[in-house]
């Protein structure tokens, strides 16, 4: 009962956008949840593993390119294309992880950035394969089990289902012994090593799992936009998702969701008034890092604790 109530409330909250009159808001809610899956995947690395990646767009972008490319160019069916996209992008994470985890800290950040740029370069310059700057289009959403995802509300339901899976599984992972090991490796790598943990393997597993969920977000991203261009693989995308994690509160479960909501809303609202999204992104980035390094969710819950303590006194 203690768990059932919050779960029911969460599901109700997740489904509430379906009641909104305008499909525009339903679409924005879908964008928020897709971004949240993406941010949750990166949070595993940044928040729990202490590994700051500046190349996480690689997995979302590759999976999205594969989803659309395999269907429109290679004649795959929708389901095989989606499975291949997630499988190949995860395999890529397994290879990239071998390279990136030669270092931690700054070195890790720079290697992930460089690896991300390779993919951006491929997408942008290898025109025959990727359509270059024009990207790939001509894709339509699938209709799994007879549910035509072309309707925004049906698509939103689909996204909610995937998001719920991702959230629950990643929450369980964070609470599992593996999650505890990952946090231990983040805070006390040498002690963990002395205790007999294989610190490299824990980080590597986290890297691959993060790549997997990033790829899942990529498939949804491809379904949502039905179009993909190199922009998705750019450093700006990787920075955006890192901002979601840091702004919301790295290492918490609700932080990435809050961060995704803030960034997606900011992006949509801001683009209605100003065209300078990248500048705004930079300003928010600097402001968050300088003034609120711990993020929204930990910051707010600290505030709440303080008020409660003041009320009790």
């Amino acid at each position: 009962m203690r768990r059932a109530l919050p779960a029911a409330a969460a599901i109700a909250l997740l489904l509430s956008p379906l009641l909104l009159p305008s499909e525009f808001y339903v679409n924005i809610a879908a964008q928020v949840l897709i971004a949240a899956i993406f941010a949750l995947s990166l949070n595993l690395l940044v928040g729990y593993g202490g590994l700051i990646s500046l190349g996480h767009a690689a997995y979302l972008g590759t999976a999205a390119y594969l989803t659309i490319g395999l269907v429109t160019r290679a004649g795959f069916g929708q389901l095989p294309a989606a499975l291949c996209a997630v499988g190949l992008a995860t395999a890529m994470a397994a290879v990239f992880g071998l390279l990136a985890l030669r270092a931690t800290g700054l070195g890790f950040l720079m290697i992930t950035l460089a690896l991300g740029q390779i993919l951006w370069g491929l997408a942008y310059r290898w025109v025959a394969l990727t359509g270059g700057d024009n990207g790939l289009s001509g894709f339509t959403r699938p209709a799994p089990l007879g549910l035509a995802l072309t309707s925004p509300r049906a698509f939103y339901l689909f996204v909610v289902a995937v998001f719920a899976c991702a959230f629950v599984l990643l929450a369980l992972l964070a609470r599992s012994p593996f999650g505890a090991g990952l946090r231990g490796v983040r805070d006390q790598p040498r002690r963990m090593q002395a205790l007999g943990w294989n610190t490299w393997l824990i980080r590597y597993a986290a890297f691959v799992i993060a790549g997997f969920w990033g790829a899942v977000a990529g498939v949804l991203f491809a379904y949502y936009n039905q179009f993909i261009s190199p922009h998705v693989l750019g450093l700006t995308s990787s920075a955006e998702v890192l901002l979601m994690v840091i702004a919301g509160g790295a290492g918490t479960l609700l932080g990435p969701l809050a961060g995704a909501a803030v960034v997606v809303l900011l992006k949509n609202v801001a683009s209605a008034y100003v065209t300078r999204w990248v500048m705004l992104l930079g300003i928010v980035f600097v402001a968050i890092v300088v003034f609120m390094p711990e993020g929204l969710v930990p910051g707010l819950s600290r505030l709440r604790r303080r008020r409660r303590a003041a009320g009790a006194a």
Partner: protein
Amino acid sequence: MRFWLVQSLNGLALGGLLFLLSSGFSLIFGLMRVANLTHGAYFMLGAYVGLSVLNAGYGFWVAVAAGAAAIALLGGVLERVLLRKLSGRTLSQVLVTLGIAFIISDASLLVWSGDPMPLPMPPSLTGAVAIFGGYFPRYRLAVVGISLLVAVLLWLLLERTRVGAMIRAGVDDMEMARALGIPVPRLFTAVFCLGAALAGMGGVLGGPILSVYPGLDMDMLPLALIVLILGGAGSLPGALLGSFFIGFLYTFGQALLPDLAYVILFLPMVAAIALRPKGLFARAA
């Protein structure tokens, strides 16, 4: 044969520009442990400043000096105002430099619009000279010469002056340098200004070859990263060798396999990461 000679010169010229970009990047990283992700933006902004100075009717060398000075000032202010505040929090510093890179990138788009614009060459350096029966663009030869001159001057600064000795001491062992009374904070600002000035100067000098366009910053930043990974942190010879190697690789890649040139560029980096057992970013001895 002509092809190889001409492309070699192009590779040298690009290598020279990369050296101007990445020597500062490497010094800043070696000394301050800050991966300054604004460095690509410095290069681009330097080129734009140079363009504006040229459009205002001043000469090319005035533009080079103005680009270097403006970016040095910007770098110094950023270091003093933002990075200093976050000292000791390396990752926060890196994220702040990334945020600033986005701001500069977008602000440049606002000010100088989205069209690629080549900087005009100085009139004294247009045309070509004949060497060994081949014709070589004079400007590219000059760029190679200037970058080599800068390399020598930097080497003299680092190896033959008191300030250089302090910088080297800081790169080798920061704690010890502090303990010996070396004014590390001032050194940080100085090196940051120097690195920024070199990047800004590189941007103006690169203008006639690469043009200046939105996105130049993000094109150049990964190149500086690769050079750093290949050459080692804070190592001047490493930066020089790495720059020319990458300059050659990119030039020939673009001439022979244009679709994949950008990707080929990263192969030595991947090899270096995979093969170097430890101390990928170790401070250069």
